[in-house]
């Protein structure tokens, strides 16, 4: 059985399903209880699960991530909500130094999830539009997922909650209501570490995640070309085999994401391909990302910074023509 849900509804559905399944699942965040969260992901949760399991925390991100770490060690399965992904900078130390390293250092598992409403496209400005995922790849011990579909949003959240490690769950705000799709009812998991071939093709590969996936699929359709689109879904661990298989098949790769370029996930994917699929490459590895600037507020400025449909089409055309 499956239902048509938005990406946002799918996240709520996944979280609710896990909370019903396992009473050790606990939500920690700002304004998530009575208010249901800034984006209403936990709307109705306090009523169903009680305000203790949907705990409104003081405005203190390190305290949130730190409390989640301690609770996880003691057998809870905490799901932290950052009101916006940008605020993880305020809980950064607990995440990268405490939670991420405890198992390696001490053999202590820390099963927690940090939900990160990320991304721009609606004039959120420099503090409500960031895509911080690459920071986490430079903090060994964290798993990182970034679903692009409603079904993956539900399934990856469930897997993240059941995973015995800290998992950063990037939920792109631009997909919340714009993406909708078939979502399995009841329990549904998607394995962490497996990419998805979103569209088969042989001419070029667009390797993307998050908001860049619908962008790539739309471009492929509109261009009517033989374009393969890989949806990474998991950013760490990366699905090296899926990435390299597609690169070797098409020999022409465009890596696309909304986050800034320098040391972004796209750089890692490009470097991986340049090292492991070099012999199969027929063209330079291209990246389509935001430039290395803060995300501006005003619509024309923001549109000039974030990858747009035309930018995606242009990048594909160039690579096809190479």
């Amino acid at each position: 059985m499956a239902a048509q849900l938005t990406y946002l509804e799918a996240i709520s559905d996944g979280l609710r399903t896990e909370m019903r399944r396992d009473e050790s699942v606990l939500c920690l965040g700002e304004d998530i209880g009575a208010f249901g969260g800034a984006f209403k992901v936990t709307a109705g949760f306090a009523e169903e699960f009680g305000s203790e399991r949907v705990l409104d925390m003081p405005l203190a991100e390190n305290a949130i991530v730190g409390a989640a770490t301690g609770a996880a060690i003691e057998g809870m399965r905490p799901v932290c909500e950052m009101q916006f992904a940008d605020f993880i900078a305020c809980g950064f130390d607990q995440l990268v130094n405490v939670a991420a390293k405890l198992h390696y250092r001490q053999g202590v598992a820390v099963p927690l999830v940090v939900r990160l409403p990320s991304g721009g496209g609606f004039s959120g400005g420099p503090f409500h539009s960031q895509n911080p995922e690459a920071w986490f790849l430079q903090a060994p011990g964290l798993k990182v997922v970034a679903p692009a579909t409603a079904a993956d949003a539900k399934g990856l959240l469930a897997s993240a909650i059941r995973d015995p490690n800290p998992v950063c769950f990037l939920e792109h705000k631009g997909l919340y209501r714009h993406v909708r799709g078939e979502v399995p009812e009841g329990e549904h998991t998607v394995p962490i570490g497996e990419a998805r071939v979103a569209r088969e093709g042989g001419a070029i590969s667009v390797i993307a995640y998050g908001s860049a996936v619908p962008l790539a699929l739309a471009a492929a359709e509109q261009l009517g070309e033989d374009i393969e689109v890989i949806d990474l879904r998991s950013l760490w661990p990366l699905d090296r085999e899926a990435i390299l298989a597609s690169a070797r098949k098409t020999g022409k790769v465009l890596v696309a994401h909304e986050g800034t370029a320098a040391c972004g996930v796209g750089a890692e994917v490009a470097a991986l391909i340049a090292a492991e699929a070099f012999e199969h490459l027929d063209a330079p590895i291209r990246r389509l990302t935001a430039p290395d600037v803060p995300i501006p507020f005003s619509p024309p400025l923001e549109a000039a910074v974030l990858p747009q449909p035309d930018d995606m089409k242009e990048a594909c055309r160039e690579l096809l023509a190479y």
Partner: protein
Amino acid sequence: MTLSDASAVIDADVRLEPALLTREDRARLLRYMTMMRSAEERALSLYKQGKVPGSFYDGRGQEAISVGAAFALAPRDRLCILHRDLGAHFVRGVTPDRYLANYMGRADGVTGGKDGNMHFGDRGLGCVGMVSMLPDMACVANGMALAMKMRGEDRVALTFFGEGSTANGQWHEAMNLAGVQRLPVVFVLENNRFAYSTPNELEFAVDPVRRAAGYGFPGVEVDGNDVEAVFAAAHEAVERARAGGGPTLIECRTMRMHGHGAHDDMSYVPPELFAEWEARDPLETYAARLLADFGFAAAEVEAIRAEVRAQVAECAERALASPMPDPATAAEGVFAERWEPLGDGAAPWSGWADAGAAAGGGPADLERRVA
């Protein structure tokens, strides 16, 4: 420092010597509060008309705080203004058109479209635009105060934060450093009962103003809806800081009369709370007091309102006429070519009226002026 001193919470209900405020000052206080109210009402209607991208935040019900506190500052003082504090921008000299244009992401907005809503500050008027992360600007205000102290200047940095932000570690780091180094900084805490939807009970077990004692400087409680009480407390704190007396934490008790943002219906707020605070509206109560205690004529008050309405209307036209920024500039300005000093802000309080005060100023000039 013995515990009892350390814990003293000064009660600033003490009426300030009337001499400090002239009749004209009082008219100005009403004017700035009215300007904040009207400009925010206009911005909200622009938001509802879809002319404001993103989200919208205002400070309805808190006008007395930003106006009263900023009114105590000299031109050379510095500010980090927060998201409920539009009045402080106006006091320092920002005009409503640049505020409205900023909300609409126009080229003539204070940030030229680079940043939005209340995340702006006019560097030319001695203000550093806030970041969203709360209460980070408290640490920045400390740094400005540190530079002033090191150079032996009789200048002061002032910043604001909501009560919810006091739960964040940076609040503590800022308070502690200010106390250790006795920095010339004034912290204005706006307790409007809620942090977004979170009520005081879930934010802290003890009112944050009581924590000032633990940092070694005074905590002062004032009625945040009484602009003169806020001014009195800010004035006292500013002069203390200027004289080398160190920081002050001023808690202004008030109520956020609108949602956290325009999207927030505030269903979590008990209606009687609104009724209670509606009756204490800072503009209405101050206007009434001007009539009752300070011999203002109803016509004068009405004239101020009319002038402000007209000015805001005209400013809205100017803002609407402002173009969107050129997309070609989107990637510009990430790095600075050179450092430049912030400019001085306007200081409309009569205490700074004579040029001397505006330029150098400080307690001396002040006493002179007030005597």
